[in-house]
């Protein structure tokens, strides 16, 4: 439904999507600045609130659906995932195996808890697994964005990025396993049901390696701190996403794994401007606005008790999992709790994951979406605030550093 604009003079009538795009780009930064100045919240909370407001009061939905725009947002997501991947140091897992234990504990406990709720609420086996898998994810987009906005550095930050990357991978794999199981339940032969997930994983790994190799060549020849060279990175990510669509690979794992491969293979520090410069930054702002659009105030109310239960138990599992092996992995108690809290954001990826489920099994996707939407909508706003609070609390942010300035 187009908004009723008949009160406007005729010459502005042909307001098209570019008008709404312009409006979002004007309003979102203002809202981001407003929540930052008024409440000291991360700016992305402002972007998300603009999205929430737009989806409920304006019909900017046409914008969100236009194909070119959606591809732009996928690039934004890929930028954040690639940035995250390139921060993950896999050697660390070898040097400190308790990190693997922490990761399995926080993700595993979250999965089991949420699966339990799903089961209790009468969702089917498949739907409960799907909800559990999706809830494992600590939104890599939110985590990466908040950490870089705060310029956070330190043990909690580094572990947060590591665990977020890992639980994203677990969730994507879990969904693939689920699809294989469901395929069998629908009467497919074992080999037949394994075919799609295997093809998916193989094409994902191949594309991730190709992307990593391409970026690796680029950074050997060009100074990636330079604005022009950084555009090349955005171009490569865009190209990779087009190939992902053609090959039916994972738009989440390809950039994430590519970043991880790059970091592990070549230890020379790779540093580029945050979000690949201004262009990437603008896309990231829009990504969070559209994330906000996908949520719906009414669902928070409708989700009601179930939504609240998911949020609370998920938080308990994340914090519990971090605390369980916190000391053994070398954190203090305070840092372990903060790490659990910092892991709370869920959003962006959750929707992408449900989308891929939805495409394969429309009925399943609907159940999952209904059960999750309430929790996800709450966490869209509360997640970034939780992460920011946790990182500040540990003194790992610029502002935290400021507080320690005695002179």
């Amino acid at each position, binding site marked *: 439904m187009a908004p009723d604009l008949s009160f406007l003079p005729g010459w502005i009538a042909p307001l098209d999507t570019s008008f709404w795009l312009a409006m979002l780009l004007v309003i979102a930064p203002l809202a981001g600045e407003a929540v930052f100045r008024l409440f000291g919240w991360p700016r992305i909370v402002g972007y998300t609130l603009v999205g929430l407001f737009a989806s409920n009061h304006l019909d900017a939905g046409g914008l969100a659906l236009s194909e070119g725009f959606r591809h732009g947002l996928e690039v934004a997501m890929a930028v954040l995932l690639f940035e995250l991947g390139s*921060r993950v*140091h896999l*050697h*660390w897992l070898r*040097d*400190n195996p308790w990190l693997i234990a922490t990761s399995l504990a926080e993700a595993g406990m979250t999965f089991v808890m949420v699966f339990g709720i799903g089961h209790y609420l009468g969702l089917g086996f498949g739907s409960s697994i799907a909800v559990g898998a999706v809830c494992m994810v600590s939104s890599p987009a939110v985590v990466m964005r908040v950490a870089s906005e705060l310029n956070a*550095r*330190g*043990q909690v930050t*580094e572990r947060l990025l590591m665990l977020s990357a890992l639980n994203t991978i677990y969730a994507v794999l879990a969904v693939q396993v689920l699809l294989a199981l469901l395929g069998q339940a629908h009467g497919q032969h074992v080999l037949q049901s394994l075919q799609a997930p295997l093809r998916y994983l193989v094409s994902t790994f191949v594309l991730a390696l190709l992307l990593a190799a391409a970026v690796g060549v680029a950074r050997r020849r060009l100074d990636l701190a330079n604005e022009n060279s950084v555009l090349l990175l955005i171009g490569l990510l865009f190209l990779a996403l087009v190939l992902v669509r053609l090959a039916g690979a994972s738009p989440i794992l390809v950039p994430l794994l590519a970043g991880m491969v790059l970091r592990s293979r070549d*230890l*020379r*520090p790779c*540093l580029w401007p945050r979000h690949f410069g201004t262009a990437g930054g603008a896309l990231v702002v829009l990504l969070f606005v559209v994330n906000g659009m996908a949520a719906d105030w009414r669902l928070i109310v409708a989700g009601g008790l179930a939504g609240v239960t998911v949020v609370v138990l998920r938080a308990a599992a994340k914090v519990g999992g971090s605390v369980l092996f916190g*000391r053994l*992995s*070398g*954190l*203090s108690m305070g840092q372990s709790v903060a790490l659990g809290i910092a892991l709370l954001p869920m959003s962006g990826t959750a929707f992408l994951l449900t989308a891929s489920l939805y495409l394969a099994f429309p009925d399943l996707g609907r159940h999952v979406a209904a059960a999750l939407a309430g929790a996800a909508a709450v966490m869209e706003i509360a997640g970034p605030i939780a992460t920011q609070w946790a990182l500040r609390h540990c*003194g790992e942010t*610029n502002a935290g*550093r400021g507080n*320690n*300035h*005695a*002179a």
Partner: protein
Amino acid sequence: MPLEAFSTSRALTLGVELELQLVGTHDFDLVAAAPDLLRVLEQQGFVGDVKPEITSSMIEIATGICEDYGDVLTQLTALRNGLLEGARRLDIGICGGGAHPFQLWGERQITDGVRYKHLSELYGYLAKQFTVFGQHVHIGCPGPDEALRLLHGMSRFIPHLIALSASSPFVQCHDTGFDSARLNSIFAFPLSGRAPFVLTWSDFEAYFEKMARTGVVKSMKDFYWDIRPKPEYGTIEVRVLDTPLSVERSARLAALIQTIARWLMVDKPFMPAEDDYLVYAFNRFQACRFGYEGVWVDPESGERHVLGDAIVALVNRIGPHAAVLGTQAACAALAHDAATRTNDAAWLREHYGADPLLPELVRRQCLRWAE
């Protein structure tokens, strides 16, 4: 607080303290990881002296009392291996070098603690600019008067030690042109520089009392001199060295200082004089700025030498004492470096020339320290 009595220590025993950089392995900037590292070290049962420093991206390790070069090297290597084990669990890097090449001083965090808070309030931004990394070498002295005499004798060779240890050419993202830019941060402090020229402990006590009465100092810790007596340990402490890029070089420098000390104590080759200090600041500046190529003016004869050549001459002259102490190999290696004009500052400039990315340079410093 009155000046404590000078403890006795066995002559020519030695001890080394190293201030080290803690860096992130993602961008290789300094990271405020000292509290994390100390906690992890405690968990792993680390044996050894390790302390926080004024900003939380620094850490200090110290050997116990060592007999000789071999002892220093063994102890430093063990300390290093323990630190690296803790650092690996935290995925942080540890490296030598007198200054971090691109850290911004404004981002440093002052370590919790009454003394550090006080220093930060007193010195303001200087306290954060004090994020520089030095090696201190203690030499045991049989008595306080001998300590003061050794201190003023050693002063003459401060430029030699600066050129040999210099490892801070890059500061705040730029090549400063200095081999040791670190010492410039220290000169900014009002109580830095040289100790007053007194040769008996009773005169030193009188000086300290006068200073304490003015309220300017409360303890020996308030003096940031290049060499200062440490009555608590019964040592003199040489403080001008930049932290070298490897523990091996740290041990060699300690061995050289021990050898010079033996020569001064046993041969008494010259009588220290107040006039030695006429050329002190000039010589020291030349060493910081130009390293081996700096001019060294002999305070006795007034002759001008190229510092690198003066170092070779010094090592030759103290050779018999190196033979007694077992430091020949260490001293010869340093003399070779001086002759070929290689030090850590040169290493850093060479590597930066090959790959002009400062984070990569710090990564290589970490690898070098772990070698």
